[in-house]
């Protein structure tokens, strides 16, 4: 276990080393949240509420969705694809650790870095500029933190899946790019899932994406009530468990293929 924790630490240090990225990160996340804030205020106009959410709840939703994104978002899929293309993965197989777990830990190190250095200060900045509703209920914060962990896991698992797919489609950068924009929409980052037409929401219930952004953001803004919260977190847990299966299967096939073809 020690080596995995070390990996988190190393990645954290690596992120610290690039200080220009750090400064620009805070600035850019704030700009991002700000721009959506205005867009949504314009959309609300003088309407009091849309789909049961007030304008204030919506802007809080958007802010927290971006803040959460800083935590769960990473480029591990790209990294895996790169390592596969450069043949480095073959070397990783002979190392005494689980490659996928290692990548997850690297992602976690990156996430913790961004959470503490991008999102929290960014959020403070945003808070001073725009009105945002923060809950005072500690239970909400606790559940939010829990949901955030699961959203990291689901996003990570999807990243691992797309990364591993490089074994089968040699150049899948395009796929990775497409995946990213689709996730931004279907995860509820750009707008809450409740804004989708009814039939689309039904389909989304059978997909893991809303577990990434919609669930934690709705919990944070207290737009979910009572049993909805528990159901939402359970939804995340179920998906974390389900996604283990395809990853393991694809990974096994990939390994076999690697052994046979020699990378």
């Amino acid at each position: 276990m020690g080596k995995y924790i070390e990996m988190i630490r190393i990645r954290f240090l690596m992120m610290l080393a690039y200080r220009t990225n750090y400064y620009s990160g805070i600035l850019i996340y704030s700009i991002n949240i700000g721009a959506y804030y205005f867009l949504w205020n314009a959309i609300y106009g003088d309407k009091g509420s849309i789909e049961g959410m007030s304008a204030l709840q919506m802007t809080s939703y958007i802010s927290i969705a971006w803040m959460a994104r800083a935590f769960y978002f990473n480029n591990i899929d790209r990294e895996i694809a790169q390592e596969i293309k450069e043949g480095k993965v073959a070397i990783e197989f002979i190392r005494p650790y689980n490659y996928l777990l290692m990548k997850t830990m690297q992602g976690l190190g990156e996430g913790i870095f961004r959470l503490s250095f991008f999102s929290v200060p960014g959020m403070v900045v945003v808070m001073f500029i725009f009105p945002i509703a923060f809950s005072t209920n500690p239970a909400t914060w606790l559940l939010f933190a829990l949901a955030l962990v699961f959203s990291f896991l689901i996003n990570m698992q999807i990243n691992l899946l797309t990364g591993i797919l490089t074994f089968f489609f040699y150049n899948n950068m395009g796929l990775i790019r497409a995946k990213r924009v689709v996730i931004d929409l279907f995860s509820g980052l750009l707008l809450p899932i409740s804004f989708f037409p009814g039939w689309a929401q039904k389909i989304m219930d059978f997909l893991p994406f809303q577990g990434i952004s919609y669930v934690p953001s709705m919990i944070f803004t207290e737009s979910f009530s009572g049993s909805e919260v528990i159901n939402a977190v359970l939804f995340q847990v179920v998906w974390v468990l389900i996604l283990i299966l395809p990853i393991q299967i694809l990974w096994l096939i990939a390994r076999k293929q690697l052994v046979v073809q020699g990378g």
Partner: protein
Amino acid sequence: MENMIEVKELRKEFKSHSSRSGLKGAFRDLLTRNYKVVPAVNDISFSVKRGEMVGYIGENGAGKSTSIKMLTGILTPTSGTVRVNGMDPHKEREQFVRSIGVVFGQRSQLWWDIAVQESFRLLKKVYNVPDDVYNVHMNHVIESLDIGPLLDKPVRKLSLGQRMRCELAAALLHNPPLLFLDEPTIGLDVLVKLKIREFLKEMNAKYNTTVLLTTHDLSDIEALCERVVMLDEGKIIYDGQLSSLRSNWGEGKQIEFQFADTAVTKHSLQPLLAELDAAWTPGNRQNVWIANVLNEEHVISEVIGRVVAAHKITDLKVHEISIEDIIRNIYEEGITNG
């Protein structure tokens, strides 16, 4: 003869920042950083005549590639002047680079995915070479380097030796009067090396091409260059004839004996060299010993005579001290000892 390259008090400094250790250090690095100004090239001056082939040597980090990059216009000097082929490489870069050819052994000039001849065609356009000039010159180059059969293959399918010959052809496509070669033979087998050397000599003879050659392989330098410029820690420590390097610092010879008796020890051999100014060093096998002696007839005959008289030997070789040993000695002991 006019000078092709003129370098006066050339200097290049790099700012390097040192990271503090640990997590706490990394946090402090976020706010302030420690800078240190390091001169990679420290006020060097030299000149190269048209048609000369000069070996440019030094250990890693001695400032070789930094100075080459200033000569080719890639980097701007911190101070000092560079005139190459009558131009300032960085200021008149686009005009200047037409007159040079560059081969970086570890970096490809050719396009990875397309056939070699397509790369040539592109470069021909890039350098604006007229068809007739191109045909005459390149046909000759292609023939000399024996790359005709490779032209329709994509670069990624070539072996290192094949690729290197194509790189060389690409660098010479516009028939530049000056050629910079940075590790052109790295990782190549002997036959390819010989072919490349032969070709460079031919180009030098035919077009009076000036060549500046950087390499770790001193046999390249011995085969091609009469003159070497040696760098250490950003300064020139030797600039002169390769042959005088040998006569000044490599006056000794090595006599290698292989004894029939495996029990021979340094101790038992010691008396044989008694008053002769010589010393034994162990060879690469158990019963092999090397006598390091002065390069004088009577000493050599005397040593061989005494050893053969005292012990049975199975083999005997006389070596000149290699240029590599000489250079290693210079770096280890400094030029003043010579």
